[in-house]
């Protein structure tokens, strides 16, 4: 058991869950997709639209991750903050998370030791990683949208763009004159949630590997790792593309 300030931390979690609108107003039984099973919607939140992400969330909870790291990644006690972990930020489909989960993690000065979960299947690891990334993206999006838009450093934004965006975008081609098309606010919104990548996912064969799917994946990975400065810098750089 980790009990350090667990009371206040739990309170925080419950608050956050509430404010995210995840607290079910009706009982689990009212949701046809949870009929007949014991699903604590009051605590876990209602079943999500995307069954893959919901499955990831349930796998994360049933494996026991939520006990220390929090259902929605608000850590309880002395557990790593997955919302801000750079290790998690570097993960792609479980390739970093998997080995850590399988091997466990020794105690550090500030964190309790993590048990090993060597018996999880590959798909369970992938499902857990899926939920962690989704929850990070949701959390980071809310945070960045709420952050005040400070004037950024266009030069730093150009460096970031070269490093993270230039494989797919160019201010000479697809983003030419983007600074004239969109004002700061709209540029910001597009960076955080590009209109072109609607949220509808599909397993249609001709869409599984298409540009939109890959773009969605890439922008998700960027989103969960943006700092407030990254976004402001990018906006300032793109504004200069006239």
């Amino acid at each position, binding site marked *: 058991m980790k009990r350090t300030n667990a009371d206040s931390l739990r309170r925080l979690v419950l608050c956050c869950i509430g404010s995210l609108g995840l607290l079910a107003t009706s009982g689990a039984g009212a949701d*046809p*997709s*949870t*009929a*007949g*099973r014991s699903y604590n919607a009051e605590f876990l939140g209602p*079943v999500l639209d995307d*069954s*893959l992400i*919901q*499955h990831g969330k*349930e*796998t994360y909870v049933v494996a026991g991750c939520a006990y220390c790291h929090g259902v929605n990644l608000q850590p309880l006690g002395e557990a790593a903050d997955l919302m801000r972990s750079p290790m998690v930020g570097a993960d792609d489909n479980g390739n970093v998370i998997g080995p850590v989960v399988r091997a466990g993690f020794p105690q550090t000065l500030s964190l309790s030791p993590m048990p090993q979960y060597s018996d999880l*299947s*590959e*798909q*369970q690891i992938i*499902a857990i990683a899926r939920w962690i990334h989704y929850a990070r993206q949701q959390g980071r999006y809310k945070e960045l949208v709420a952050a005040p838009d400070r004037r950024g450093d266009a030069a730093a934004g150009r460096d970031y763009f070269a490093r993270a965006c230039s494989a797919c975008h160019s201010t000479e081609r697809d983003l030419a004159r983007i600074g004239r098309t969109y004002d700061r606010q709209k540029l910001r919104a597009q960076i955080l949630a590009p209109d072109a990548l609607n949220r509808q996912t*599909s*397993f*249609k*064969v001709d*869409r*599984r590997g298409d540009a939109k799917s890959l773009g969605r994946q890439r922008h998700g990975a960027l989103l969960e790792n943006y700092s407030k400065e990254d976004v402001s810098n990018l906006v300032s750089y793109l504004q200069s593309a006239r």
Partner: protein
Amino acid sequence: MNVTRREFGKLALGGLSSAVGISSLGSRDASAATTATAGANRSLIEGVQFGLQPYCYHDLPMTRENRPLLIERLLANGMGMVELMSPWVEPNFRTPGVTPEQAREKLRQWRLNVAPDYYLAIKKEFDDVGITVFTYYVDFRTSLRDSSDAEVDALFRAGQTLGAKGCVGSMWLSAAQRLASFPGKHGMFLGLHNHANLSDPDALSSEESFIKALSYSPDFKAVLDVRHFVAANGDCLGFLERHHSRVASVHLGDRRRNNGRSTPFGEGDAPLIEILRMIRDNQWSIPAIIEFEHGTLRSGVEEVQLMFDYCKRALA
């Protein structure tokens, strides 16, 4: 499988209200014609047709005497489609005092001599309660060792008379080769069912072995057993992408890679949600036949319901 997704859709309009599952037992006296079409719809979920491999009722011995109980259970689970295995249909000759060889010979003679009415009566049992017999599962592996062409023909005729679109068997490549000419004669397909065996070159387990076996006859189709394919480290989504036009159905269950154990849905390595969404999003006419072999303290009906509910949530 000749019913297109569009037809599925049409049938769905009339049948969705019965999708609740339990207690369709009262509808037995409804006319066969309406209920038979409504049948498959009972387990048509978001455009994906579900059915059951009734081996799942591990607590119900497979005998023809137990067929009424089987039908009750299928209805209790809200199933409108079944892959019927021959022990539910044929008499059991392996009784005390009968040698295996004698029992085999009696079965052979029975198959060759039974009148079509026998199968028609069984078909009617399923028709009457609105359950579609999608496929007839026969143990070709054992039978082939000593089956004449006449007996194989009798098995296909049996499947056809039961209303099945195809016969299915767990298959060795050598057995498949011998069976190549049979399904076409009867206007059926032969569904090739894979196992996890990685060591035997004659086994049907990898994508390569499927490609080889499917090349033997245009009337062959893959019955992709997801559990065994995953245990043999196969890529289910890639297989469906590449071969969906030759896939008759998937046997839907979960297992772990590297010849791992069977697990409850969602605890193994089979990408079940992705498979179901792929069938739905591509509007493929590939029924998902639920099957499990993992352990449970629950009754078969309870366990099947948990898995079917998992699938419904996956497509919700």
